[in-house]
């Protein structure tokens, strides 16, 4: 017996299994980052010598990275709508662009932020602010990296499914998209919290 509702929606819930699964996963991710932001608030409000964050971090690169991620969210949606309109080449282009933006984000993050800071001796043991900065942005960067791996799979070998089971492939891209938007949204909160406030 096949497992029902992997591709089609269950009538009374209006959901496919993977789509419901990813929403639950995101709920757990909300609690993950929620715990992290709560910890940040507790540590910062309890600190006697929290540095002025905007003096320590590079707002320009942070802002550029914010723009890059917002753009990647847009291309992600476009890749999904392209599939919906059965334009496979357009899908490849837009998911490729999304991967490119994501990699660009990581490159800027590592080469222009992490490495210069480490050279200046600003590491996790410097003070609680930097420990929190590396933890929060690092965990977010790992999420970006995970997204990149998955998207490269669907851009490359995974896209063969378009020939065999197009409906399921569209669903998969939608699920990836939901995850990707969430990761972008986390950054939208991280940027002001760490760079501006």
């Amino acid at each position, binding site marked *: *017996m096949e*497992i029902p509702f*992997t591709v089609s929606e269950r009538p009374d819930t209006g959901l496919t299994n993977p789509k419901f699964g990813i929403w*639950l996963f995101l709920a*757990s991710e909300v*609690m993950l980052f929620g715990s992290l932001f709560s*910890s940040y608030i507790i*540590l910062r409000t309890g600190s006697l010598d929290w540095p002025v964050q905007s003096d320590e971090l590079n707002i320009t690169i942070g802002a550029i990275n914010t723009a890059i991620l917002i753009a990647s969210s847009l291309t992600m949606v476009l890749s999904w709508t392209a599939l919906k309109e059965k334009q496979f080449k357009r899908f490849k282009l837009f998911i490729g662009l999304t991967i490119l933006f994501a990699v660009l984000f990581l490159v800027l993050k590592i080469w222009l932020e992490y490495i210069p800071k480490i050279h200046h001796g600003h590491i996790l043991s410097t003070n*609680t602010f930097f420990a929190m900065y590396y933890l929060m942005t690092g*965990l977010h960067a790992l999420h970006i990296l995970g997204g990149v791996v998955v998207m490269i799979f669907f851009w490359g070998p995974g896209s063969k499914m378009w020939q065999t089971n197009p409906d399921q492939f569209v669903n998969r891209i939608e699920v990836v998209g939901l995850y990707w938007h969430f990761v972008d949204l986390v950054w939208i909160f991280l940027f002001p919290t760490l760079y501006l406030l």
Partner: protein
Amino acid sequence: MSTTEHSRQSFWRQYIFSVDHKVIGLQYGLTSLSFLLLGFMLMVLMRWQLAYPGEVIPWLTFVVIFILLGLGILLLSGKSRPYLALNSLIFFGIAALIWYFSTGEERLPGGIMLPEFYNQLGAMHGTIMVFLGVVPLAVGAFGNYILPLQIGAPDMAFPRLNMASYWVYFIGGTLMIISFFLPGGAAQSGWTSYSPLADINTGQTMWLVAMLFIIVSSLLGAINFIVTTVQLRAEGMTWFRLPFFVWTQLITAFLLLLAFPSLQIGAIMQLLDRVAGASFFIPAGIIQGGKVLEYSGGGNPLLWQHLFWFLAHPEVYVLILPAIGIITEVVTNNTRKPLWGYPAMVYSLFFIGFMSFLVYAHHMFITGMGTAVTTWFQTTTLIISIPSIIFLAVIVFTLWGGSIRFTTPMLFALAWVPMFGIGGLTGLPLGLAPPDIHLHDTYYVIGHFHYIVAPGSIIAFFAGIYYWFPKICGKKLNDNLGKVHFWGTIIGMNLTFAPMLVQGMAGVSRRLYDGGLGYDHAQPVLFLNEWMTWGAWIIGIFQIFFILNIVLTLRKKSRSEENPWDATTLEWATTSPPIAHGNFITEPFVYHGPYEYNVSVNGQNVPYLPQHKKMDIED
């Protein structure tokens, strides 16, 4: 997948890296029961030290007992049952571990336990019992095997993810055991791992890495359970036709999904404190052995407790809710009556699940949180006791006027009612700040939560094992051996845990290496240490009857009936054991609620009406 494909599957695909929820459920069950046995043995070593402080531990006797048990299984299973014989490895493994403990100067030199090693045993007993024993048994084993059957699903919604959850859990458990063999030994900061002690104590790094694996496993499992319950219910299986066990698994999965991430963050932060020199939980100027440690400071040790208990309180409900689900199934089946107040049970379950996130800081009354916060948490704690009382009341009302069958699972279920009652009622003084300040960190707390988890959860799991064994193996466990097992276990457990409450009220602290020998106020209750140790032995000895029962039953050639308990729920609508892929030969359709016992159809009394049989019930 068709049956022809199935027969072509290799041994590895079929038994080791299987994606069938029934095989994964059995893997979870066997692994978690082994961890329960291991956690129990760690405790037996500790209890010897508490009853006879500083005396030589008879470790060789324990090693011999376990080797004999292993050999017994080898002999009884014979050549024709290689898979049964393999289980002797569990017993040889535990024997080897105890033998390993006796070697080396930093554990049991000359057979006498060192304080550091006592701490390791304490931390690992708690961790193994909670995270590697009870939760995987409740959710991984019972949930995996029974839930898809009870809702009429062919499998879990994500079979490969299911396999991944098991193997990630297995890696986590293996890492926990490996930590005993590392220099410095296993974690020794208690299962709660309070900072800053846990930040600088030896053995903690491996504990944290292993915990991260266990957490990931739970999260993957939780997603799978929720999607399966919501999406894969058979046709006609409306929400209020779900067996109550399914409801408990659903709410439990939500608790795991939403509570575990906070410990995940806590574990990552503590790990970074240890390996990267961060100071998330370390205040400035911390001194160890007379020297100021080189940390930047500025961290908050209490933050760890918040992150930990935000998980660990809902975790308590993860331990008990599936147990309540099992008890409900067994009680309704053996009273031959519908569940009294099914909607009340379901709404209480929702309420308890929601409230469990709002009570966690009652574990932290002595940290000086301030009176406003304390008042909030003691109020919510008293409110959360209401749904628990509804559960107990509903089960008692279900018994009322029923023609009770005293089968072995029912004995366990009946004993569960007062045991869970004691566990719950002893918790009330801990939920109020003034008595808690006296009782906190005493043996009273240990007695309270062991009453919840041992005669509460574990007794319920025994009920479940006796109840569903004919479903899983097609053979019924022996009733006489089962009754011996039941009486020994219940007497042993009470002899072990009731004196803890007495000692705690006398003020004896937990985690004492000598059981209170060095304290004046502990002298009048010191004799209880020996009683509790005898209790532990009684529990241990009577588990041999349980193991023997399983082995002897699996040896039997005769099979039991397909539905030996005359049960109504869907897991009995298929063969025992269910067919390998798809569970059901024909897709089940559900017509009735889960507990239609002794209902009237066409003016005639029907002793039990299975959910998939179409008949019109008259009111």
